[in-house]
């Protein structure tokens, strides 16, 4: 079940990540798409990769985890420049004809997911991509939605949340300086 979190004021507790992961893992395992073939899991740097590692472990997937850094695919590259701490993307298998499970921490405008899908298609033509997200904070600018969702969260305009980790994994408000 998708859990709808009530409107959160800043001082309300944010969702507990291990609980979300538990629910997400069981929903992934019950998806008909993955009934016969386990998904190839891909995490987006950095928070999505932490979550993917945790889900990969819970689901005991045999094929290694892929990691994606979408810095070279951002649509605002010429405006904000290159991420100075870009990491190599690494998909340790061929994507052609396979069912991929793309994992990220927070879904907001949808632009990161668009960039990630563009990058995945430069590796080949997957049979499908399923999107797993821990927190949907609304504010979409593109027609993208999660297939597997931990929870929805209303984040007031001008506020930011982020995932800190990898140990422990927890959501926190980003302080404005």
């Amino acid at each position, binding site marked *: 079940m998708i859990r709808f979190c009530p409107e959160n004021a800043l001082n309300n507790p944010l969702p507990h990540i291990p609980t979300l992961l538990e629910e997400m893992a069981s929903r992934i395992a019950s998806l008909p798409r993955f009934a016969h073939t386990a998904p190839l899991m891909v995490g987006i740097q950095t928070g999505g990769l932490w979550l993917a590692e945790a889900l990969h472990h819970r689901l005991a997937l045999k094929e290694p985890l892929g990691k994606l850094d979408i*810095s*070279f695919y951002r649509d605002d590259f*010429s405006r904000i420049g*290159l991420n100075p701490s870009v990491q*190599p993307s690494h998909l340790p298998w061929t994507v052609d004809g396979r069912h991929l499970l793309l994992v990220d921490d927070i879904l907001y405008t949808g632009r990161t997911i668009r960039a990630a899908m563009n990058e995945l298609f*430069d590796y*080949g033509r997957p049979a499908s991509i399923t999107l797993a997200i821990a927190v949907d904070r609304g504010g979409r600018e593109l027609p993208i939605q999660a297939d597997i969702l931990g929870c929805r969260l209303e984040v007031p305009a001008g506020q930011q949340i982020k995932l800190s980790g990898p140990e422990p994994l927890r959501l926190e408000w980003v302080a404005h300086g």
Partner: protein
Amino acid sequence: MDNLQLNPDGSLRHFLSIEGLKPALLEQIIETAASLEQVAERAVKKVPVLRGKTVMNLFFEPSTRTRTTFEIAAQRLSADVINLDVQTSSTTKGESLLDTLKTLEAMHADMFVIRHRESGAAAFFAQHAAPGVHILNAGDGWHAHPTQAMLDMFTIWKHKSRFDRLKVAIVGDILHSRVARSQIHALNLLGTMEVRLIAPQTLLPEQPESLGVHVYHDMDQGLRDCDVIIMLRLQKERMQGAHLPGGDEYFRCYGLTEERLRLARPDCIVMHPGPMNRGVEIASSVADGPQSVILEQVSNGLAVRMAIMAMVLGSGGESGA
């Protein structure tokens, strides 16, 4: 000169020389190159960072591998690339260069990759470049060849992972080598334990110690315990002049042979910026041997040039357009 290649926020606007750059920026180039390496192994060997940008290769001096790797690098970043073979004219340098730049700028190029026989040519272009236009130095006179130096640093980093315990020897015609000059600056900025220059007096610049290096005239002494050996091309045209005896004698004194290589550490790597003179500065058995990383340098040149282009064109200086 120092500030010319940086934006106010410290990011790269032009890439003209290693001098004046901070170690963190060199490390960022190496790390970005490491991220771009895997592009070559994918089904689609391109990333879209420079989509819609135009890169002009402006080579006033002949070059095969540097120009080709710049061209491939720009294409792998999805830029449009135009190669211009510019005949060096005898007209006065300042006027003609400036005219060339302004003419090509009017064709809406976003980046110029420039090789020129005059030291300072790239910096001259950078001084006069319009806002939003970026200049990369692909070798200027005896002054600098910073992308070559960075691909060498990337190669060393891949094999040795850190610089602070390394002894690195640069051997040969250091006096006429823009590559060596850029390498020395880069190695020192990255904290290399010891940089050695091995060369006859006639092929060394004046007061080489001021560059932060140890000088050896005896190759056997200089190679002892080295982790990295960088051989330089002996420019044959210089051998006619007063600088040197014949090629055979040079090889006897300063050629890298298997026997000499054994003086260095067993895991020492051998590098050469190319093109090589086999049997003049390096024996074929060493150039093709197990410790040689010379061909790997060429592949690494692609990733490094992609990284520098992405960093320069992705720097903050062109916002608001």
